[in-house]
């Protein structure tokens, strides 16, 4: 067998002279790169591309609004913007938005915490996993109104109940994503963590959370969005004491008074906050973590 192969090896292709490069003593390595055109450079900036998309959406809105010509149902973009500016100058919209954001942050923070605890329990034992799975599949589909009675009993009217409902809307989505992320962490990494003697919370914090960070971040994004949705809807279900109230209430009130440009100004605020949070907060986190770590490409 060996001989056979050696025999074969004689039938080599194209014999050619050997090359030996002398020790090059050029310590400076200059590299000639093709430069990009200005347009290409600009296009490479994600902010610029996003601005293009936003402008396009605004134009579509404006045109569609004009075609529809039904101010009571769907105002134009310009009408919305002027109502928005009006309300911002009034100070009404910022105050309402701030009221909503405050509650939102509290609910979101508690939801994230709770999701963390639930997932930690789920990682600790099999019955914990079953518990999380069962709870999630049971409670996640329940609408906020279902919680009303319990919320009233436990927290009464007002912010306590709103926070409760927010927690409900945030927790399950984040827990699901986190848990599935944890389960998908590579076996080797988990073994490495155990090898260091890490267990319990330290194992979760030092190994699972960073390793599952892309999933967790998605969960956080979804949770954030659903928190907004729920808050705005819940302000209606749960009632608001007059005088206070957040963005949801602003929208609802103006809707009741058929002041539709204001309704859309409220919605625009939600959209703007969404854009800001995505681009300033989530994108920054992404850039500093999963992109730097090469976990997403």
């Amino acid at each position, binding site marked *: 067998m060996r001989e056979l192969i050696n025999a074969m*090896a004689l039938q080599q*292709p*194209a014999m*050619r002279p050997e090359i030996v490069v002398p020790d090059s003593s050029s310590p400076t390595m200059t*590299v000639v790169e093709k430069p990009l055109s200005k347009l290409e450079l600009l296009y490479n900036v994600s902010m610029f591309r996003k601005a293009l998309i936003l402008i396009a959406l605004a134009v579509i809105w404006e045109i569609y609004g004009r075609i529809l010509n039904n101010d009571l149902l769907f105002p134009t973009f310009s009408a919305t913007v002027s109502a928005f500016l009006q309300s911002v100058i009034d100070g009404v919209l910022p105050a309402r938005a701030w009221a909503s954001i405050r509650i939102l942050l509290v609910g979101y923070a508690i939801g994230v915490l709770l999701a963390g605890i639930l997932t930690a329990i789920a990682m600790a034992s099999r019955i914990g996993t079953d518990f999380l799975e069962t709870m999630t599949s049971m409670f996640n589909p329940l609408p906020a109104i279902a919680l009303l009675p319990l919320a009233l009993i436990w927290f009464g009217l007002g912010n306590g109940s709103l926070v409760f409902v927010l927690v409900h809307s945030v927790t399950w989505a984040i827990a699901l994503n986190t848990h599935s992320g944890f389960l998908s962490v590579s076996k080797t990494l988990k073994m490495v963590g155990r090898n260091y003697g890490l267990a319990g919370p330290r194992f979760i914090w030092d190994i699972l959370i960073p390793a599952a960070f892309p999933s967790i971040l998605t969960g956080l994004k979804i949770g954030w969005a659903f928190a907004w949705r729920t808050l705005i809807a819940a302000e209606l279900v749960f009632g608001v004491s007059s005088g206070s109230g957040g963005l949801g209430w602003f929208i609802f009130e103006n809707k009741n008074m058929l002041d539709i440009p204001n309704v859309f100004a409220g919605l625009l605020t939600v959209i703007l906050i969404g854009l800001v949070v995505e681009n300033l907060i989530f994108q920054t986190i992404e850039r500093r973590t999963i992109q730097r770590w090469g976990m997403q490409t």
Partner: protein
Amino acid sequence: MSFEAPLLEVSGVTLRYKTPQHLVTATYRVSFQVYPGDRFILLGPSGCGKSTLQKAVGGYMTPTEGEIRLKGQVIRAPGPDRMMVFQEFDQLLPWKTVRQNVAFALEASRRLSGKEADDRAMHYIEKVNLTKFADSYPHMLSGGMKQRVAIARGMAMEPDILLMDEPFAALDALTRRKMQDELLMLWEDTRFTVLFVTHSIAEAIKIGNRILLLTPHPGRVKAELNSVSDPLEATVLERRIQQMLFSDELKETADA
């Protein structure tokens, strides 16, 4: 034969990785030609850019400088004409069994389909001694077994040019010898071209007919040698390559 046009022409290729914080030059102005039927070896120290060069030939990276031509055409994208065997263990599709993994490569690249693909797959799986595990999923295999599946897949594709990145590194001496022989036998049958990365000088001499030596990071061409088949000559060549590669090391030690 020596007047044929080169199949693969790498000319003055600089490859760079851009990360937000760093700019890593992997290879610097590397040039070489691979002729049809060549068993071309890339040999060099760890981190000198062998894998990067292969990825560039595979079409996954664009050179910062220089160009790579396959059959006279600049390489722009990956394709099944250049079948790759990667260095990483996670190159098998986890959702396919061993036989599906090999057969799917054939089907996806529209080489063969159905029964034919499956037959060819089983043929090569037998060659890498994994018939017993044909219906196992990759996560149930050992490191060496995974690499053997990847080798079977690469061979089954019978591509114009086979790019193999340290394919036998995870294999024990016996299995390794078997695989080397298989590769040579297959080459004998179909005379494909292979661009082979290895870190074993002996393997380089055994497998290759032409050996490219690269300097440490960033990789530059140090020499391009012909291989030999006579055992005695091989020992001489091995020592020569060793000297060329280790000269830096020796110099360093002398400096210290």
